[in-house]
Structure formats: C-alpha cells, structure tokens
C-alpha cells in the first residue's frame, strides 16, 4: 500500500496531495478505490486532473500481459533442470529441480532431508557450472560430510577447493535474518553485480520450519504474516531470479488415525511449494523400536504434490558414504 507522495507521478503536486489528504485519501489504494466524481467534489480538484493521475497510477502499478508463446519460449530458454545427483529422485521429479519452482522436501527427523540437500548441492557444483547458496537454519550442514560426498566424485584437491568456493553458506537462526538474507540475495541477483550471483541457480533452505515454528502458535497473530511474507520472497526468488529453490520441512500428523503424513506449518503453507516430496525411512514398522539393531540406508521418497508428474509415484534412494544414489 504505497502512499501518495508528491512527484510520484506528473500532476500529483504537493498541493494536490495535501488536498487529497484532507479528503482522507493518503494511499494509492485509497485513491483507486474512491469514485472520482465523489472525490473531485470532496477535495475540490478538477475531474480531468484526477482522471489523469488515476491513469498514470494504474499504469505504474499494473502488471504486464504476456502471451503464452512468449512464456513458453522464455521457459524453454531460461529455465534449467538441476539434477539432484540421484537418478531415482530425478525421475520422480521429472528430471530434477526446476528453476522457477519451489521444491519442498518433508520428512520425520533423521529421514535424510539434509543428506539429499547436501547431495544436491554437490551434484549441482560438480556437474554444472552453476553456483549454490545453502542456508542452514538448524546447524545441520556438516562440511566434512560435504567433503566426503565430493570425494566420491574423484577430483583433485585444487578442483575440490574451487567447487567448495561455489557453495555459499549462511547460518541463520531467526526469520528476520532469513528474510533479510533472501532479500539481499534477490537484489544481488537482479543487479548482477558479482559473477557468483549471476550464475546462482540453486537456493537451499534447510529447514524453513526451524525458523517459523518458534514464532508460530500460541496467541501470536502477526507470525502468520511473517510466514507468508517469507513464502513470497522465496517465490519471487524462484520466478524473478529464475533459481531453483529447495526447502525442507518437518512432518506432523504421523500418529493420527489415517496415518497420513502432512507437512507442518499449517494449511496455508501447503499451497506454497510447487512440488513436494516426502522422504521416510524404510520398514519403519519393524525398526520402530529404537533398540532394534537394523540399520537401513534405504529411504522411500514419494511425490506428494506436483504440476508435472502423476502424484503418488515413489522411488527408493540409498544414503551411503558416497552420497545419495
């Protein structure tokens, strides 16, 4: 809701703004919502002048139409599909992570979410010349693990150093810092000031729930706004800056009657990601007792939400020392 300010557009002089204010119109929205005839009576400004201002404001704030062909061409030329490093996962995601989309991975604790994030980051810097931003909100990014996964790709030490420089990490622990960080990224990418940012194609946030849950719940009312705001920044990072955004989220409802697993953060968050995959441990029923010795590196990944693939498909991945396969 931007306010009406002198010189915001021609014709909107200081006296006009003053007059409008007297008629209780101080923001653009208020101006556009009022009938012009009524307004010209209230503030004693000529009708034509107000129409001109309205026209300019509308043009200034409206978005532009785009033809489907142009959109398609742009999608084909500008979007990239980033491999996650695991063939099964790529197939499930119709090729991998799409730029311009938010992909969410949900799962219970120790399901392997962070492992997939690490493997994807490594796969992107190894196989493409794109850069990665990794935002760690839970302190779970483990550089030595990153190293271990990279080593399995059999590279020299100098090459390794170069690869590592292309993964930029942020350690962020509250939502305000996260919003600030993402906003800065957004600006840097659009400015194309640094070579790192102009080649940035993947943004990982592991996990969003860790920063949102501390402000959600209880009697807080504004926290919901922060969550939606965060989702808007993520969306605009994905679309405006054509990056692929990979986020992780917790699950809830594992113990309800239906046994259906839902992502946490509530219903309004469910709509945010374009694609959602759920990851869980295998044979959970038999190994549910923690004292059982069964070790499993296999995880089941299933597609919960997608606009490209049939929902409900699933695949097996294995989390090994060498990464995710």
């Amino acid at each position, binding site marked *: *809701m*931007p*306010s*009406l300010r002198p010189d915001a557009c021609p014709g909107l002089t200081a006296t006009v703004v003053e007059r409008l204010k007297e008629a209780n119109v101080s923001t653009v929205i208020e101006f556009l919502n009022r009938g012009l005839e009524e307004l010209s009576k209230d503030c004693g400004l000529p009708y034509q002048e107000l129409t001109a201002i309205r026209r300019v404001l509308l043009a200034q704030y409206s978005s532009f139409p785009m033809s489907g062909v142009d959109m398609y061409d742009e999608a084909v030329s500008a979007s990239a599909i980033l491999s996650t490093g695991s063939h099964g996962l790529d197939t499930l995601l119709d090729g991998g992570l799409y730029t311009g989309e938010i992909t969410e991975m949900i799962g*219970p*604790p*120790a399901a392997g979410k962070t492992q997939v994030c*690490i493997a994807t*980051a490594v796969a992107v810097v190894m196989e493409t010349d794109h850069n990665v*931003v*990794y935002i760690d*909100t*839970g*302190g*779970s*990014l*483990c550089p*030595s693990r990153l190293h*271990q996964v990279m080593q399995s790709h059999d590279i020299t030490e100098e090459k390794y150093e170069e*690869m590592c420089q*292309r*993964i*930029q*990490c*942020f*350690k962020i*622990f*509250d939502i*305000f*810092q996260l*919003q*600030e960080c993402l*906003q800065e990224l*957004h600006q840097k990418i659009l400015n194309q000031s640094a070579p790192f940012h102009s080649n940035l194609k993947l943004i990982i946030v592991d996990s969003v*729930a*860790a920063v949102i*849950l*501390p*402000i*959600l*719940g*209880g009697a*807080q*009312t*504004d926290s919901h706004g*922060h969550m939606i*705001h965060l989702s808007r*920044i993520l969306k605009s990072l994905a679309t405006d800056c054509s990056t692929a955004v990979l986020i992780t989220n*917790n699950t*809830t409802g*594992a113990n309800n009657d239906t*046994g259906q697993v839902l992502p*946490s953060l509530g219903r309004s968050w469910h709509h945010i990601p374009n694609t959602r995959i759920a990851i869980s441990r295998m044979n959970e029923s038999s190994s*549910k*007792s*923690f*004292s059982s*010795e069964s*070790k499993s590196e296999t995880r089941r990944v299933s597609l919960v939400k997608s606009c490209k693939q049939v929902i409900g498909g699933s695949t097996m991945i294995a989390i090994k*020392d060498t990464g995710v396969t």
Partner: protein
Amino acid sequence: MQRELSSFPIQPSLMSKLTKAGFTTVEDLTDLKPLQLSQELSISNEEALDLLNLVRGEHPSKLKLKQTTSFTAFDMLQNEESQQCIVTFSEQLDNMLGGGLPVCKITEFCGAPGAGKTQISIQLSVDVQIPTCFGGLQGEAVYIDTEGSFVAARAADIAKATVEHCSNIAQAENNEEQLKSMEAFTWESVLAGIHYYRCNDYLQLLATVHLLPEFLTQHPKVKLIVVDSIAFHFRHDFDDFSLRTRILNGMAQSFIKLATQLNLAVMLTNQMTTRVNADGGSHLTPALGESWGHASTIRVILYWRDRQRYARLYKSPSKQDMTVPFQVTLGGIRDVKTSEDQSHNMQGASTSQHKPQSNYEQNTNEHNTKNAQYQTASSSEPYHTGGTERAYGSGQDRKRSRIDS
C-alpha cells in the same frame, strides 16, 4: 523488489500505524528524518529513531545480531577441521560421534530412566575441562538441571577419576607442560568449572536460556551447555501444544545460535515415551513429539539390552547409523569389556582403527602398570577401567547402586 517493512521485527501496533500512514517498504522510510516520522505516525521521537535505525540496519545495540555473513563451504570445512570435540572417555562412543561431542552442534541423548543420560551429562561437563595439553578443550560447563538429578558427589567421583587419569599420563610421559598444567587441574577446580543451574519449572528454564548469552559473555571459557533434561517441564501441565512447540523450537534456535556463534557444544537429554502403533502394539520413542525431533543436529538413543547399556546413533548429518555398547563405572563412562580375552582382541582392533584424537593413547603401557585403578586387560587400551570397581571395593554400596556391576 523493495524489502517490505512487515519483514522487520516491528511490534504490531507500530506496524499498523505505519501501514495506515502508507509506509510499506524500506524505500518509503529512507529519506525521512526521525522528526518527520514521529509527526506522521504520532509516535515519540525515540521510537521513530529506533525504527529508522532498525530499517537502515544501523542499530547500535543489535550489531551482534547483524551477522548474516556468508561462508563458502571451503571456509566451513577448514573451520570445522580446526574444531575440537569433547571426548566421552568411551572410545567406541567417541568413534560413533566422530571423535566425541562436537562443538557448534546440538546433540541430544534420549533414554528411558536409568539409561545413563545424567551420567553422560556429568562426564562431559568434566571432560570439557581437560587441559589443552592433554588434547582437551580446557573449557567450562553450564549445567542446567531440570530434574534435580545432578549429584555433586557423583560429579566429584568422575572428576577425581579424570584428574587421576590425566596425572598418570603426565607422569608416564614426564611431559613438563602437562605436569605443570596438572597443578591447576584438580577435582576441586573441575567442580568449580561447572556452572550449575537448577530450574524448577519451564518458566525458570526459559528465563535461564534467555539470560545465557549474557552469562556466556562474562564466562567466555564455557564450551559446553548441558540441559538435563529438556523434556521434564514440558511433559505435564501443558495444554496448549502449539505453544509448547513454539517455546521448544524457540529454545532450540537460541541454543544452536549460541553454539555456532560461540563455538560451543550443546548437549540435551530427553526422556522416552510410549507410542501406540496402529496394530495395537507399542514402542518407545523420544518424548516431546515429532517436531522436536528436528531440533537436535545429532540424536543418540540410550537403552538397556541383556544387562548391557547401548548407545545408538539415530540421527547425524555426517555419520551412518551405528550402535555401540558402553558402561557406567565409578569413574564415569567407559568402554565395555565383556571378558578379559575378548576385549583384548576386540579393543585391540578398534584402537588401531581409531585416529588419535588426544594424548590418551600415548604411552599407556607405563601408565597402566602404574595405575591400578585403570589397570586393564589390554595394554593398548587406555580408556579401559575394568578394575575400577575392585579398586574401591566394598563399603561403596551406596554408589554401587548407581553404577553398573
């Protein structure tokens, strides 16, 4: 896209004033003077100044919070390699955790009553103080006790055993630096290095956690924060579950923030609860529900089986699942020796794989012969304390009841 004001930590009443006056993005505020803003919003000058400082990122008192610096993965790796771990005195447990309790991470130990959670807590608050010349961190510990299970006499036992162990190494090696540092490293000094908080309800716990950053700036030597247990106050009298989730996750975030910024280790213990399966059976699972499961970076489950304690690594960003046995002796946490011969073979093998983390392994031949308390079957196995119980003998029944036989 301009950053919106709603993405700043601004109180709702002020925010609604801003919105009403038409200020929604940072740009709207950049050219304003505090006086103008205070008139526009009819707020005090100070409030207006605070607001402008916040939005322009020039808040003088919150400079520390503004550390959204980025690292490359390479910086992080080098950083991590220079970091040390807190040893547990059980070599197998250390191996499982990747050298011991890591700093900059939250490690959670879950277990049913009597599984050894408090013992490990006390052991680690002692071990964090081992002098640097022995490969320790020479730090201090903050011990937040919610259950009242910390026993000072037990801490003294473990401290004495640890000090004795170090002094034996120093004497065996005849290392002057080590001998010198032993003068300051006594069991009294170890106990003095544990800052103990007793929290009787969750309000106290919350308040303590909020005050911790201040305490830690006054005590920069603190390298370990123990909360034993995080679950206790949250498992009863809590109707509003969303509030509980919020409080717990808020605490987890402030812990991980402290851990990363101050390079210290956070160790939490958690209780177990019974979950009923769909098929009518039940199993034990860590308390506080699923959302809490994400809070800790590393999760270890402690349990008993066949009269033997086990620790299972359930969640870790860098290690595979693993289960190792351990025991609690009078001197603290130790590796298990099933029988003298078996352990000789087994331990011998595991020692050779173990990359040296500290000086414990050096010259243990001499040290073992000198020290009856740590006398073990395997001369190459320094962690071992098979003889501990014998050394103290009878008359210690009170203590024995707390430790394994």
